[in-house]
């Protein structure tokens, strides 16, 4: 395979030079400026050196700058190349290093093009009736599945090329839900802009609010108080639990295990109800804000811990039943197999990567907020199939419960401020990152005179959807629903 990594030591010299030339940004962030002509070359060196690509976009501050983000040696590497004008676009050929790069560059080029010529169609304005590839062969045809699908699902389209049963090839088309939200941030004060962040991917509202708030805090040099960091961790873990329980309930539904489905739906409803009692919103909205959290919890810590105990008791029994039901597990074992090498090529993140033996988790790689103190056991399974991804989620549910309990203990021991004021006319640029339920989420923020000027969102779903095209190596059409649910992604987050 041409994507195989060469030995790291042969490149060590070049890489060390790259890293040595970098300027430390806010903590955990390394910044490197290169001329536009060397932008592509730097990508190549980083690819060879084993960096993980996150995103590429154009920033506006201080001038126009192509910006590439990488996870590299436990830090976030920001590669920046100043350019002269908007029309100047990075070379599409850069996609040869990581397939994820190509999609990110396509999106960048496409958005600029769409702004220039109104009504133009590209990947951000897909045509639902367009079959992109023609297929040839005996009884081979393309099923355009979506964007309107049976059931209550988000809009996305899969063009399935099939001979009737086996899935010969598949193309996932996103951006049916593109709402242009990144441009909505501009001109808002950070404490208002966080409402936009919460609505990029509604089911991961807390993760988006935390990532955005952390980016603002790092850009302006504000440290949120400890108590606020603990509450953020509790809210984030509850959100992860709701998302994971949702995936497990849907897995039970697709195998017609209806009592199991009902049980996990009830558990999810309990978590949602608990979030409503804690924050006033079933999705934990309106609480996390740049500087800290807006208000104290609406219920006592003892009530929270009692609720957590109840959920854990039920979860133990339901998990045991679920994993002991052969009609369920037989459908999942071996379905939707993803090779570890594929995960690395596509720079996939989250439970998807951890189900294929890749131990990446932003909470561990670059610990932020309370995760610097909580200590995390990363749940990894090597099998790479739908079952492994369910097992990762079960493991993380219990890990979340443990961390919530630990954070409650810490909250009990002391009281303190919940929020720090932001400087009124602060300026700066920085990244904020969290491990959202779907995987690592990075948000880049530019602030000028106390107002948000630009935002770029590297959502985990955008990167992970690309792998769906490769999730059917030996699976048939009837496995579609299991495999889709085992990914557990949001379309809203990918489309923005």
């Amino acid at each position, binding site marked *: 395979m041409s994507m195989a990594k060469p030995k790291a030591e042969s490149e060590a010299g070049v890489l060390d030079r790259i890293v040595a030339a970098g300027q430390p940004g806010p903590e955990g962030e390394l910044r490197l400026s290169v001329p536009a002509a060397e932008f592509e070359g730097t990508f190549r060196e980083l690819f060879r050196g084993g960096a993980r690509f996150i995103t590429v976009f154009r920033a506006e501050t201080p001038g126009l700058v192509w910006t590439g983000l990488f996870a590299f040696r436990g830090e976030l590497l920001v590669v920046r190349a100043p350019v002269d004008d908007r029309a100047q676009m990075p070379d599409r050929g850069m996609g040869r290093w990581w397939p994820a790069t190509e999609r990110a560059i396509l999106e960048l080029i496409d958005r600029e093009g769409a702004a220039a010529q109104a009504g133009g169609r590209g990947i951000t304005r897909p045509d639902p009736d367009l079959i992109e590839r023609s297929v040839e062969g005996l009884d081979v045809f393309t099923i355009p599945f979506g964007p309107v699908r049976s059931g209550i699902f988000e809009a996305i389209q899969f063009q399935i090329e099939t001979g009737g049963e086996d899935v010969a090839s598949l193309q996932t088309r996103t951006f049916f839900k*593109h709402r242009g939200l990144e441009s909505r941030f501009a001109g808002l004060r950070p404490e208002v802009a966080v409402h936009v962040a919460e609505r990029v991917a509604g089911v991961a509202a807390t993760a988006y609010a935390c990532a955005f708030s952390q980016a603002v805090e790092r850009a302006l040099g504000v440290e949120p108080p400890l108590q606020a960091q603990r509450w953020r961790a509790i809210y984030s873990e509850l959100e992860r639990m709701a998302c994971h329980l949702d995936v497990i309930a849907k897995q039970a539904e697709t195998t017609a295990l209806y009592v199991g489905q009902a049980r996990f739906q009830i558990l999810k*409803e309990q978590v949602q*109800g608990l979030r409503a009692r804690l924050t006033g919103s079933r999705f934990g*909205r309106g609480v996390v804000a740049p500087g800290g959290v807006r208000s104290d919890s*609406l219920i006592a810590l003892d009530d929270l811990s009692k609720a957590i105990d109840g959920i854990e008791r039920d979860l133990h*029994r339901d998990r045991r*039943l679920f994993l002991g039901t052969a009609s369920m597990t037989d459908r999942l074992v071996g379905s939707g197999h993803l090779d570890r090498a594929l995960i690395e090529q596509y720079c996939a993140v989250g439970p998807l990567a951890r189900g294929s033996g890749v131990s990446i988790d932003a909470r561990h790689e670059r610990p932020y907020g309370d995760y610097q103190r909580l200590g995390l056991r990363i749940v990894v399974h090597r099998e790479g199939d739908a079952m492994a991804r369910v097992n990762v989620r079960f493991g993380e549910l219990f890990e979340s419960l443990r961390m919530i309990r630990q954070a409650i203990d810490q909250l009990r021991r002391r009281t303190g401020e919940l929020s720090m004021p932001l400087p009124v006319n602060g300026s700066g640029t920085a990244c904020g990152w969290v491990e959202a339920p779907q995987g690592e989420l990075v948000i880049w923020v530019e602030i000028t005179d106390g107002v948000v000027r630009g935002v770029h969102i590297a959502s985990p779903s955008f990167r992970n959807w690309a792998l769906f095209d490769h999730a059917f190596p030996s699976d048939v059409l009837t496995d579609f629903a299991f495999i889709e649910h085992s990914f557990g992604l949001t379309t809203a987050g990918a489309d923005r």
Partner: protein
Amino acid sequence: MLEWIYRGLSRGRVTTRYPRRPEHAPHGFQARVEVVHPEGGGPQLAALCPTGAIAVAVDGHVTLDRGLCIVCGDCVRAAPDHFAFGSGYETAARARAALIVGQAAGLDASASPLRPALAERAGGLRRSIHVRHIDCGSDGSEEWEIQALWNPYYDIQRLGFFLTSAPRHADVLLVTGPVTTPMRAPLERTWAVMPEPKALVAVGTDACGGGLRADDRTAVAAARPTAGGVDQVLPVDVYVPGSPPSPTTIMHGLLLAAGLLRPQEAAS
């Protein structure tokens, strides 16, 4: 398998009794924003809202448009004399104008007349109503809340609502999201193939009035990413505001759409 059956039965009944008995929200639940004191507002109040839901008349009368309100609470925190969170779930309405609260009596949600055409249509639906959903650019949370209607807690099948995968079998179409450009044609087609009588329910603030969509007033119409609300594309029968509306609120909207609530119940 027996163990599953035992497990299901042993937990007892969890289903809500709504709408026969009122559903009470937990303490502090932020279901909606109320105008608690509509008089004596200044123009600074309108500036508090990121979506422009607050309007202040020249005489200082304050109104709030729930079709635009994303329940962010910025106004409640900055002007607690005028605004407060309300925990009532029943915010769905049959007319767009009825979503504007703080108006003088007579124009409020309670007085909104049932559209005659809808009453006729709803009369034909009665107690076996098939529901179809289409996502036109929501943030994903509305889908969770609609899915929750079929979970054991809300169990909307007990009221005669069934989910159907074919628009040709559907009586009610639930639409989420502000209608993005690529979803406009699929939405129109889905609506067109549904048989009469039929009702269209806009679920969520994004669907009702556009919500926090990209500020595209300056852009060329064709280049705007969204239409800014379902009623810009198709006539809406019931509006369910909220960001996202909770399952009980969506249930309220569905009952309104099906004509299953008598006018006095609908008024509460």
